[in-house]
């Protein structure tokens, strides 16, 4: 990775992103940036010109990513995250998180196994191993469109038809997909992976695909949990997985306007690292930030845990370029707001790869906060906690992040307590169990915890902290320390690895989310949990499932609720099918209780069947009309969101 100047200029700092070999002086650098703006102002007609400007700017910054081009070199081919990081059961029969990347890495978690066994009815002795490393012959033969392939090979764009590359691009991370990797095989995978290096490369590939009637599925970070990357099995055309990972440059940074422009393929952690080095942040932190990409965030309408300060993706995006079969769509200016008919950004955001591919995004940035402080509050019960969050939202004094875990999740956090390390002292230990449970009368089976993250200038943080704890005390909440808060956020990244451990022991698990008005939060949580439990029972699951939820975002008029759900599938012949039926039932329940189809995971293929009831038939018709105009040949044929009638294509 290249290094940054330690004392960066306080004006335009595009230069900081240059390789040290770049010899241009500050003046010319500034000129380039301005050129970029001017060319943008030329509007969509001048796409070729803009291509040129873009090429120049590209030299402006090149980021070396943590993730390699052939992802399977660094990432698990059949599970979550890095190859070197995972939960194992060690020789003593205790859970251990191996690797070196996380704070929990290398630690033994003595209570985890017992907890898992107790709450899922599982037995760590029962092992359901995954199939061994994939052999190339297990991957379906590619469909090849020779003319397209010939034309592509004549471009200077990297591509691969290697079976393992192709299979890696065939999926996201729903339970269903991971289960196929572990125990089965995909019926349809992309036929070729193409790695464009620039906006122009993308324009060329899309043009060729349109010419030869080839299907494109854009690939960002591959972390989708909506089935959005799955190849439609009935697709007979050649399928291109357009891997955006090589388009990961930060093109420029504009300190005056506090914006930066980066290519769509940059992944969250790379973007944040580079910006942090410059003293900035986007403030956008979805839980998948380690692996998900900027373009992916835009395409799914993602949300970050610190949205209270920085906003969600729709608040952060200033400008987007998207290449569609019809041409490039973008606005001609980068302004904070405009009244120019329906906002085309809102057609792009959430389009889930069905209209085109996002090549460049200009996003707001903020100076890194002076102070970052964690915190936590312990409540007697979930009801008190929700009431407190509601009040905080009403007073609009929510810290950067505020999350409320239910009792089950609180206990789960306890079970993830490692053998040593001060940061990992359990909540109750840290709080002197006696004091909380005996003196204050908190029931360990009822209490729940809110984790807090404050960011800002020191006085602001301290004042806000005081105010939040004051409100919490009105709801009988007690401050429970910084460490507990920090630990809560740290665990978020590690929890994703737990599913793979569960799968080794007959436990399937998944998470799903929704947004809901404040007055229905409690009812929705209670009813969805009840539904999960009853559906599992009715579908023949032998053991009571584990279900738990947390409120992860607060808004003026409602909240985002996140459910984790797991069950032991011993005795079931088709656990994934049972799982899907149960999740479908839970989604029906969410909708019946006034919740949404999705707060930030998106629709993909998994939630398509509810979209028309969500947005009305006219709404679907509008989406179809946009699709029909933008992509009449269905080149972006992932079949996410809506199902097109064959006849129209």
């Amino acid at each position, binding site marked *: 990775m290249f290094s940054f100047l330690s004392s960066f200029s306080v004006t335009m700092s595009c230069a900081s992103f240059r390789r040290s070999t770049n010899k241009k002086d500050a003046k010319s650098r500034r000129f380039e940036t301005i050129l970029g703006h001017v060319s943008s102002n030329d509007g969509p007609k001048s796409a070729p010109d803009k291509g040129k400007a873009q090429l120049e700017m590209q030299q402006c910054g090149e980021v070396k990513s943590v993730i390699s081009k052939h992802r399977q070199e660094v990432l698990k081919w059949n599970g979550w995250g890095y190859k070197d990081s995972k939960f194992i059961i060690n020789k003593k029969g205790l859970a251990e998180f191996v690797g070196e990347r996380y704070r929990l890495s290398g630690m033994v978690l003595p209570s985890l196994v017992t907890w898992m066994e107790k709450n899922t009815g599982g037995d760590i002795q029962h092992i359901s191993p995954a199939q061994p490393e994939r052999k190339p012959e297990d991957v379906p033969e590619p469909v090849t469109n020779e003319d397209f392939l010939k034309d592509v090979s004549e471009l200077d764009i990297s591509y691969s038809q290697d079976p393992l590359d192709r299979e890696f691009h065939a999926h996201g991370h729903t339970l269903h997909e991971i289960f196929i990797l572990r125990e089965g095989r995909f019926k349809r995978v992309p036929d070729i992976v193409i790695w464009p290096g620039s906006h122009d490369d993308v324009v060329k590939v899309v043009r060729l695909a349109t010419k030869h009637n080839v299907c494109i599925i854009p690939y960002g970070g591959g972390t989708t949990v909506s089935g959005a990357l799955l190849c439609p099995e009935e697709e007979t055309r050649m399928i291109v997985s357009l891997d955006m990972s090589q388009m990961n440059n930060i093109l420029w940074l504009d300190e005056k306007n506090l914006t930066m422009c980066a290519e769509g393929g940059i992944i969250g952690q790379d973007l944040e690292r580079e910006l942090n080095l410059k003293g900035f942040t986007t403030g956008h932190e979805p839980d998948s930030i380690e692996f998900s990409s900027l373009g992916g965030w835009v395409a799914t309408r993602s949300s970050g845990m610190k949205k209270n300060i920085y906003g969600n993706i729709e608040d952060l995006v200033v400008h987007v370029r998207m290449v569609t079969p019809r041409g490039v769509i973008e606005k001609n200016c980068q302004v904070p707001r405009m009244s120019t008919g329906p906002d085309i950004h809102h057609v792009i955001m959430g389009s889930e790869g069905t209209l085109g591919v996002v090549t460049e995004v200009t996003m707001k940035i903020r100076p890194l906060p002076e102070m970052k402080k964690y915190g936590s509050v312990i409540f007697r019960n979930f009801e008190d906690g929700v009431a407190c969050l509601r009040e905080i939202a009403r007073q609009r004094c929510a810290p950067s992040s505020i999350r409320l875990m239910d009792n089950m999740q609180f206990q789960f956090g306890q079970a993830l307590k490692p053998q040593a390390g001060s940061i990992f002292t359990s909540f109750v230990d840290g709080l002197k169990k006696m004091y909380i449970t005996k003196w204050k009368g908190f029931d360990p089976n009822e209490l729940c915890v809110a984790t807090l993250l404050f960011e800002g200038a020191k006085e602001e943080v301290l004042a806000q902290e005081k105010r939040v704890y004051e409100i919490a005390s009105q709801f009988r909440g007690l401050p429970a320390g910084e460490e507990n808060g920090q630990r809560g956020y740290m665990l978020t990244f590690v929890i994703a690895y737990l599913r793979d451990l569960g799968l080794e022991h007959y436990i399937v698990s998944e998470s799903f989310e929704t947004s809901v008005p404040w*007055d*229905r939060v409690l*009812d929705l949580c209670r*009813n969805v949990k*009840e539904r999960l439990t009853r559906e599992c029972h009715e579908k023949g699951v032998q053991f009571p499932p584990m279900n738990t939820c947390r409120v992860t975002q607060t808004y003026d008029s409602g909240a985002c609720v996140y459910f984790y759900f797991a069950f032991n599938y011993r005795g079931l012949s088709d656990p994934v099918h049972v799982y899907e039926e149960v999740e479908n039932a839970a989604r029906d329940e969410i909708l*019946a*209780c*006034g919740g949404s189809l999705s707060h930030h995971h998106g629709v993909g293929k998994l939630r398509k069947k509810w979209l028309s*009831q969500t947005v009305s038939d006219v709404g679907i018709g509008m989406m179809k009309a946009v699709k029909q105009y933008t992509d009449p040949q269905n080149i972006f044929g992932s079949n996410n969101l809506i199902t097109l009638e064959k006849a129209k294509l």
Partner: protein
Amino acid sequence: MSRPEYEDILEGKRQYSDLGFSMEAYDPPRYKHCKPRTPEKVKEDVLNSTRVLSVIEQLAAETDQSEDDLLSQARAMVEEMGHNLRMRSIRFFAYFLNKIFKALYKRIYVNGDDLEKLAKMSKDQPVLLLPSHRSYIDFLMLSYVAYCYDFPLPVIAAGADFMGMKFVGTLLRNCGAFFMRRSFGSDRLYWAVFTEYVQTLIRNGDSPMEFFVEGTRSRTSKSLSPKFGLLSAAIEPFLTGSVYDITVVPISISYDRRLEETLYARELLGIPKPKESTSGLVKARSVLQENYGNIHVCFGEPLSVRKLAEGRIDRSVHGLHPRHMSMFTSEEHTFVQHLAHQVILAQQKYMVISPWSLVAAVLSQHPQGLLLKKLVHEVVWLKKQAVGLGAFVNWPAKADPSNIVKSAVELHHHVVTLGADGRVVLNLLSPTRPKMETEMARKHRLMEEAEVRLMVVTGTNQLLHVFVRVALVLMALSKDRSQTRDELFRIFGFLRRLLEKDFIFMPGQDKQDFDTAVQYLSRAHVVEERGGFIRVTDSGKKLQSFLHEMFSPFLLGYWTMCQYLLTASSDDPRGSTTQQLTRGAQDMAATLLTNGLVKRFEILSLDMLGNSITSFVSMGAVKKFKSNGHALFLPVQGEIFSLSKQIETIIAVPDLKTAVQVIPVKSRL
């Protein structure tokens, strides 16, 4: 649930002291999401609810009342309404009821196993207990049974008319009764307070909630058409996702003999009902000297509102409005109506038919009385028919049928007597009639006779729901010629529509009802179908004529109303009230009876005559309109005439032309 298994709950208590019983440990299960509250806290929660506060705000803006005034009105309402369920009262009440019930009844049968299962379910979701309502005893009975089985005591929606009763009102309140005004149609504040009161209890599941879908006690012993208001309010928390599910339990309470039998007969004839008062109850003490036989309390199959709504209701529409605003979609209205009907049909299904009901049914077709032997023979035949249709008859398998009949007669000695000559006869006054009798005296004598006869009729009524569907088919079917299925269905449909206020039919299921009835009759060889034609078999003639007799009084009553509307009321274009019409038709019926033109006293029942008006309204033969807040009715002569003609094709009616002099032309006014 197949056949309920009953146990007698009084048996063990006869050897045990009432005080001991009332001090027993009582620790019922509780709904798992319930946050325990005192009755006072419930009232506070109601007054602080968004529903009530927003209505207060609206009313303050629309009228000249201040918010404070309205709030104190709301407070008065909730005080008037609120229950005050408390353990002390429960124990007193247990003591008191144990004493009374042991004195009044031989046995109280309960399907205890099913109740125990229900107790387990009551932890998982709020429960609505929906009993049939044929006696005051219903109120007390369920709470008593609940106490016996360690089942949570219900809160009970009661009519506000009980509230005025000193002591009893308080006792009922302390035992969980809450009170609703009989009519509060336009009072938005009352509606808000009441709805919130009901719903907060259901949302929090403080106690199971008991109310009567029929709205009031059925004097006739037939199920009444359901009321939807309270049921709608009670299941709304499910529709808005405030609770996961609601368990609805239809409960059938069957009596061998009701305490109020005489009272009811008078009421049906229009002899005014005394206002509920404590002194009235005390006067009724002589009532307590009698033996009232057995009671069966059957907890029917619990219904899950969630399961019933599956695929029929889209609850997500309630995401579009604040939940304190009640908004029912048309699907939800239909759903509630169906649920209410389903509950009543389930109550009917598990009603236990008392032998008296069979005896009464036979006797009402033999007003001169019957030899015991003949009576027993007929009763046994009828019992077989009823059992064949799935009725539960309280008929001990090993007992001698004539003993069963004799004890039924004995139990109803105020109505019938087994004479020394071996005949069972109604307790009528001497049939000799004075030579010179005034019109008044004649009518008075008629009413006295009618009182006894109507007690036989209410006995019979317990049985009617078992037969009504097959009876309507058989009535539609000509005695001596075959008919096409379509023709039969058309007449069946007409009768079903005509009588839908008197009997409970699931709305929209006329075809199913018809098909099921015809299928049953074919299997039982009562009818046969050949080449698309249906006719009654020789062996089926007996059932046909018996059921024809059993149900024809309804048609006769409706027909009488037709005649009344055709003759008397046609000249008043301003319309008449129900009361004017039923009284007028009753007068006409009385005249027909005293002149011997008709024999069935049932047609004197104001209840039946009132039902005929409702039915005529829904069939478009009578127009209903409002004037000064009163409902007025105006017949549509042509339609009434045609209805009358249709009825005449089914039952025999007197020829009024030859008897024209006996019909009072303006008896109505």
